[in-house]
């Protein structure tokens, strides 16, 4: 297949997914402030590739904030400042000359409330390619189809790709948003409570999807739902009041937590 992408764009992975290098994701000595309020007090963490890592903890403990460090979405929040390094494959993504737009093509994000664009299903999924300047119609079409297939939406929408993305049900919209993210072929996917606004059936479908995706992608998911964390994640990190209390294989966190606070949270003594 001919490569329609210009040279200085996201490379190799587009041609042959098996050439994907496995990303090494590290957070070193991270501290975050919002207008003087110290939201994250000092966290070190290494994310294992091709896994699903769950961030759990009570509301307002910095899970989402920490998640958004990885694709620099916090940059848009007034009063945000941080210390420390986030390194992906050894390069600090917070260095001055980093091209944030390129970063976000490698690190995708799915939001809590499904937010499809007010455009057609096709245009939603194709958007990420369009802004990279890709114009090859055949390439775009194949990529859109394969993304919709990956999320299991293809059979449901293939008859009318021109329908507005907003006309889908909540669960379908969220899968559309995931397809949209997959279309640019990131290697890391961040998910910020992706099922909290959905009904149980849609939630189950998406959990199954996440389970399948981890073969090709590295996924970090923030969730309020501990059972969900237990079901789909390989590793779990427990956050409390801006600190990382415990971080281990999910099995261990839920059956044999090391810290008392972790156990209290998991057994529902506080939430």
């Amino acid at each position, binding site marked *: 297949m001919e490569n329609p992408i210009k040279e200085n764009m996201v490379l190799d992975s587009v041609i042959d997914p098996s050439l994907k290098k496995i990303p090494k994701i590290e957070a070193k000595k991270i501290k975050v402030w919002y207008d003087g309020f110290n939201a994250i007090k000092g966290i070190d963490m290494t994310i294992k590739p091709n896994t699903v890592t769950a961030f759990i903890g009570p509301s307002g403990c910095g899970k989402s904030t920490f998640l958004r460090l990885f694709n620099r*979405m916090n940059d848009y929040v007034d009063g945000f400042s941080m210390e420390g390094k986030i390194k992906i494959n050894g390069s600090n993504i917070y260095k001055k000359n980093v091209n944030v737009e390129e970063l976000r093509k490698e690190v995708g994000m799915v939001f809590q409330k499904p937010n499809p664009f007010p455009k057609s299903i096709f245009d939603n999924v194709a958007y990420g390619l369009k802004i990279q300047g890709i114009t090859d119609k055949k390439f775009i079409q194949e990529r859109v189809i394969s993304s919709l297939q990956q999320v299991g939406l293809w059979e449901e929408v293939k008859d009318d790709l021109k329908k507005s993305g907003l006309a889908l049900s909540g669960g379908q919209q969220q899968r559309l948003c995931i397809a949209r993210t997959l279309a640019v072929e990131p290697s890391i996917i961040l998910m910020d409570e992706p099922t909290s606004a959905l009904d149980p059936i849609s939630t189950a479908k998406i959990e199954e999807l996440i389970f399948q995706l981890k073969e090709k992608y590295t996924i970090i998911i923030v969730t309020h739902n501990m059972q969900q964390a237990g079901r789909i994640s390989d590793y779990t990190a427990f956050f409390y009041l801006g600190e990382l209390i415990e971080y281990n294989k999910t099995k261990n966190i839920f059956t044999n937590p090391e810290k008392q606070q972790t156990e209290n949270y998991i057994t529902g003594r506080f939430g």
Partner: protein
Amino acid sequence: MNNIQKNRWKDQAFKYWGVFCTIIGLVLLTVFIGDILIDGIVRIDWGFITDLPSRKPENSGIYTALMGSIWILILTTIIAFPIGVAAGIYLEEYAKTNKLAGLLEINISNLAGVPSIIYGLLGLEVFVRIMNLGASVLAGALTLSLLILPIVIVATREAIKAVPKSIKDASYALGASKWQTIWHQILPASGGGILTGVILALSRAVGETAPLIVVGALAYVPFAPSSPMDEFSVMPIQIFNWISRPQSGFIENAAAAIIILLGITFIMNGIAVYFRNKWQKKWK
């Protein structure tokens, strides 16, 4: 007992007074328009629209004024639309919290309240004299563009504000730049609202008289403009001119021209409302 009854009676009386006040304005408007229709409808025929103004009311038509209005409308759109929308985008998407934003906001709010004739004085000095454009259609259009600029800017800002932040987040998260997000997501999503505002602003421009009189639009122009540098007249000025003439035939002409002007204004407002409804539906 008596006090409560008195209060109830006052309450009812106010209700009737309220309905009366609400409809009195509209009733009067209907009376006025009815009167104009009676006065002027007979005068409207194809000849009226295609005749040039003349000393005899029967032969006097609105052709040059109508053409002038169309020229002004088109030129004003070309000038005010891009500048107003660009300024609105800047204020909503780029300048949200810096000091400049506050100053710009106060300034625009002030400009919106400046009497239209003052814009005429500005246009006279700057466009007609200093820039040497003379009393041309271009000078008139530039003057009116400045007049409606605050309206277009406010309409753009309101339309952009209505676009949910989640759309922007999704766009940025996919690696789009700020301008890509604005061009591909925000503008298409707010387009209907912006269009509504622009059409309403233009409908206002079509009815403006005073600034154009000051700029030098003539009351008696025997030709339609053929270039932006030509002299011109517009419908409201033609109406004004006819009202000022003693012969009663001209009153009829004025009424007829008013009917056409109102027709244009109502159609434009109607189109604007249509777009606004269509745009609001998009988000349901």
